[in-house]
């Protein structure tokens, strides 16, 4: 069985008028007093969330690290593009390195002294679930005994530019950055057991699966359309933070919030292809 040992979630609301982002170094400093130099916002989100979830525990060095991001290091990638295309300069070496998908993981694994499996995975709206699935694959097969799963995405400023990238209305007033984490362990006696995420191509498949869990409440990371509402009619369900304009890696926020409910429940997400992902939390 897979046990959820710890979870952590950080969400910052960023408004259209905001020019300064909330301080993340203070969160990092709780676990690592020496200031880490030259890390960008995206890396800070990863390190702040990861260290907070681990909470000072000493993990086995071969623990797996499964990082999820929908959009990657947007701020630094944009800076690099400006240096090249607008300014006609070579990109600064550190900026270039920090555009790479796994640079954030480098800092986190270094701080946690981990030398095992490390991945950066993405699957649009279901990126967090994708990372979770990969962690479950390795835990279930016995490759590892401990896995750290994290999903994080930043709000790249200027705000108006980020709205264009996300194809959101120009009058959108808030966006959210976040960092959401689970520490998982393989265990004979799991207090908070987690099942491997289940994927479904169609609503029918999801419906059939849900029929096995008729009494369980469902938390949706999407606003259901009429077909979906009909399919879910026999279940208790609610939509996680329905007012959020864009759910980046926030399915991680939804899942960690659901864990706090201490009730046996199902986390449901959907991507643009109309595929569903369900996570059963016992």
């Amino acid at each position, binding site marked *: 069985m897979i046990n959820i040992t710890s979870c952590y979630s950080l969400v910052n609301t960023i408004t259209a008028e905001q020019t300064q982002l909330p301080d993340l170094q203070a969160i990092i400093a709780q676990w690592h007093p020496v200031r880490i130099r030259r890390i960008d916002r995206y890396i800070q989100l990863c390190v702040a969330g990861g260290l907070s979830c681990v909470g000072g525990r000493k993990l086995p060095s071969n623990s797996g690290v499964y990082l999820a991001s929908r959009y*990657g290091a947007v701020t630094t990638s944009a800076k690099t*593009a400006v240096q090249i295309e607008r300014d006609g*300069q070579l990109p600064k070496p550190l900026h270039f390195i920090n555009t790479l998908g*796994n640079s954030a993981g480098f800092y986190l694994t270094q701080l946690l002294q981990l*030398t095992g499996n490390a991945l950066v995975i993405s699957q649009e709206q279901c990126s967090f679930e994708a990372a979770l699935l*990969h962690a479950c*694959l390795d835990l279930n097969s016995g490759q590892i005994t401990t896995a750290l799963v994290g999903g994080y995405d930043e709000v790249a400023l200027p705000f108006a*530019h980020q709205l264009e990238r996300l194809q959101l209305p120009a009058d959108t007033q808030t966006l959210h950055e976040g960092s959401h984490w689970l520490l998982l362990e393989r265990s004979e006696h799991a207090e908070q057991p987690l099942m491997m995420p289940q994927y479904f191509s169609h609503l029918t498949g999801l419906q059939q699966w849900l029929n096995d869990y008729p009494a369980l409440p469902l938390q949706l990371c999407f606003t259901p359309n009429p077909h979906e509402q009909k399919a879910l009619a026999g279940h208790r369900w609610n939509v996680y933070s329905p007012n959020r304009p864009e759910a980046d890696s926030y399915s991680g926020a939804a899942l960690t919030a659901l864990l706090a409910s201490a009730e046996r429940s199902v986390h449901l997400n959907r991507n643009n292809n109309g595929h*569903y992902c369900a996570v059963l939390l016992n």
Partner: protein
Amino acid sequence: MLTYIRQPSAQCSLGDNLEACVSNLLQGGLSVSQQAFNNLQEPLQIPYFASASGLQPEGFYQHLNRFLKDILERAQLDTPARARTALLIGSSSFDVHISEQHYRADLQDRGPESAVPMPIIGYGKLAARLARELGLSPHHYTYSTACTSSANALLYGRRLLQAGLVDHALVLGCEQGNQTSQLGFYGLGLVSPAGEIHPFDTSRDGLVLGEGLGALLLSHSQHTPAHERRWQLLGGAIGTDNHSLTAAHTSGEELTRVIRHALSDSGINTQDIDFIKAHGTASLKNDEAEAAALLRVFNGQVPPMFALKPYCGHTLGASGALELALTLGALKQGTLPANTRLRGEAQLGIELLQHTIAARPAHYLLNCFAFGGNNNALVISDSGQSQ
């Protein structure tokens, strides 16, 4: 459960299809061009292994669709089989070349204050689009671990099959020429001034980047026709070396660990490895680290090795899948590639094959290492013929 590797496909500077690539590879042909960056304040030229087809950015998505569709058709995967097929894409740049193009146009249209740099974002968009167009399963994942991206995709394709979540896994490594990667590597001082890649050689002075596509279909043994049961992906491993962001530790300690783990995952011993496809970037520290690790793992008796980057360049996130496809293409032609262009004395205690040799049924170790300390080793077996 056995994992078979089928339908290796490749496009790179060596050719527009696997047969052309391998033919050029075995003849020792290579085509390095000079890419001009005239938009810089101080214009410069950087050597580059550009794709033979000269792919235009606007055709990128359609081109990938055709490339993968061709594999599915050759493997005769019908609609139900495709619905049980995962898509795993590894890249370090995805469609950043298109994002760069849009920003360039935006700078012209709206000016520097309003133009949005990096307008296209979303690592997973490409996989979602291709999975939708090709009717593939909901298991479509994108891996972004720099140069190990598609090697990691291969490993997890196998693990998805092992877990019974899918019957097939279509793995794509893709890397298209873009300014960020080329100028980024140049700025780090890692590009060979001579425009040649000489791994493990005294004359090595850096790498040359390249673009390319490599794709393979992994299939569960029950879903592999007998005539395609020749190559197996036996296993592999991923390890983390967080000594430095841009180079492996020259002691080779962490690379040793990942190679040993890969052998153990594959259920074989060091003496079972017959040949090695080296990562071989020809950068000073990485070659030193890889050599140290191989000498440790094989106790000084390193099996015959070859490196493919001298012929196709370092294709970054595509290199894991592309170099596996090229290796299988060479095996299909019955010949192992050699590195005949090496100059000077081999150093570091190991050397690459100087002459092509006949392939035989064997186990191969394939190394792939990345920035950020992400390292991958895979083990394949070649039975020499299909059943």
